[in-house]
């Protein structure tokens, strides 16, 4: 039933909410609900019933003149129609590209590990090479990995740029396309949940090396190595999450739910606030850190900002 309501909401999206229009919407919904109920009672499945109701709905153009929305219908600039093929391509591209951007992120997170490992091994006496050489080698590895990661990341994420309008604009889907996306989502949901679980467990465990090393071994120098181990675990967890998250994100974008809901997209003030918010946080972070040189503590702004952002977004959605 919700699908029918959403369908109708989408059709009426962007039209002036005059009394006539609202009444039309209410009556059309009543007719569709009656038909849906009767089809269900006659033994049709929910999907069949919805399919019939939507295919027999007709076209709003027929009502344009009677409702005085002719102009509004003709100038519905924000409402694009996303075709079956477009949606399919987007999901397919997201599926292919997300493991690659994930690899880019993985390489960036891994980048300091070689340096840390070399320093750790050196300080604890496992290898004995001049520290300057170690640092040079480690830094070279760091830069190489970051470069590789970033170039990977940029190269592949740019392939999804052509779909940016899906994230920003309000659009509508036909019934068949929406069903296809819901099917993809349903098939995929189970494995995505286990992916998230695995990653969360890995994130929690990633703290263990740093906590346990000083307790188990009384060698201070091992701490550096334990940081490398922690980073490796974080890198794997993040890779896992991003590479499998692509399809979920694509489906969210296409179904206009979660962060991509019609309400969020049409809430221009909120979009502005969210842009300004993160810019402001970056500015505060850099200014504070450079002026006071307290880089050790200033990072705290990030988790705090994250929580603040969530709170503001909830308040903003509520107000709408």
């Amino acid at each position, binding site marked *: 039933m919700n699908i029918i309501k959403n369908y109708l909401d989408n059709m009426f999206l962007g039209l002036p909410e005059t009394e006539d229009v609202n009444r039309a919407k209410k*009556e059309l919904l*009543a007719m569709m609900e009656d038909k849906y109920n009767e089809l269900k009672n006659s033994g049709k499945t929910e999907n069949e019933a919805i399919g019939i109701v939507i295919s027999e709905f007709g076209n709003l153009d027929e*009502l344009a003149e009677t409702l005085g929305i002719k102009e509004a219908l003709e100038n519905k600039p924000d409402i694009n129609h996303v075709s079956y093929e477009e949606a399919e391509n987007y999901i397919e591209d997201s599926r292919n590209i997300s493991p690659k951007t994930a690899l880019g992120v993985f390489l960036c997170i891994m980048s300091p590990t070689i340096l840390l490992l070399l320093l750790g091994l050196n300080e604890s006496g496992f290898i004995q090479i001049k520290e300057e050489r170690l640092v040079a080698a480690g830094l070279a590895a760091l830069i190489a990995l970051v470069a590789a990661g970033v170039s990977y990341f940029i190269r592949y994420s740019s392939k999804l740029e052509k779909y940016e309008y899906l994230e920003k604009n309000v659009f509508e889907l036909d019934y068949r396309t929406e069903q296809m996306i819901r099917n993809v989502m349903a098939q995929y949901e189970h494995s995505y949940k286990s992916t998230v679980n695995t990653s969360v467990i890995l994130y929690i465990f990633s703290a263990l090396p740093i906590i346990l090393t000083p307790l188990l071994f009384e060698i201070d120098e091992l701490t550096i190595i334990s940081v490398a181990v922690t980073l490796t675990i974080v890198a794997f967890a993040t890779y896992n999450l991003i590479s499998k998250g692509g399809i979920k994100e694509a489906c969210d974008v296409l179904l206009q739910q979660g962060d991509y809901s019609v309400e969020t997209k049409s809430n221009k003030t909120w979009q502005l606030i969210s842009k300004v918010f993160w810019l402001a946080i970056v500015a505060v972070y850099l200014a504070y850190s450079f002026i006071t040189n307290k880089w050790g503590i200033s990072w705290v702004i990030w988790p705090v900002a994250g929580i603040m952002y969530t709170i503001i977004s909830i308040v903003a959605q509520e107000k709408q």
Partner: protein
Amino acid sequence: MISSDVIRGYIDTMILYLLLNNPSYGYEISKKIRELTDEKYIIKETTLYSAFKRMESNGYIEAFSGDETYGKPRTYYRITESGKSYYNEKCEEWKLTKEVIEKFIVKENNDEYY
């Protein structure tokens, strides 16, 4: 398949016919049209609603809120006197139309032209 262009001029007639004896509401009318025509014509919701609006503003039908079914109030439509006379006019018009067009339709049993 019925072309919607041809039938458009007679949708009002169909609806008025169904309202002649009893008031009715959207879904019931669309269901009766489907049943009476043996599913040869299925009226779209938007077509039906625009016909309601058009006839309401012409004064052929009146809307009123009726009994609650499934817990929600329903808009019913009843035919007015001017609706009845419009219906009769349309019936006459159709008889004439049918007679005229009929002259140009090849009869299936013999292929002679009239």
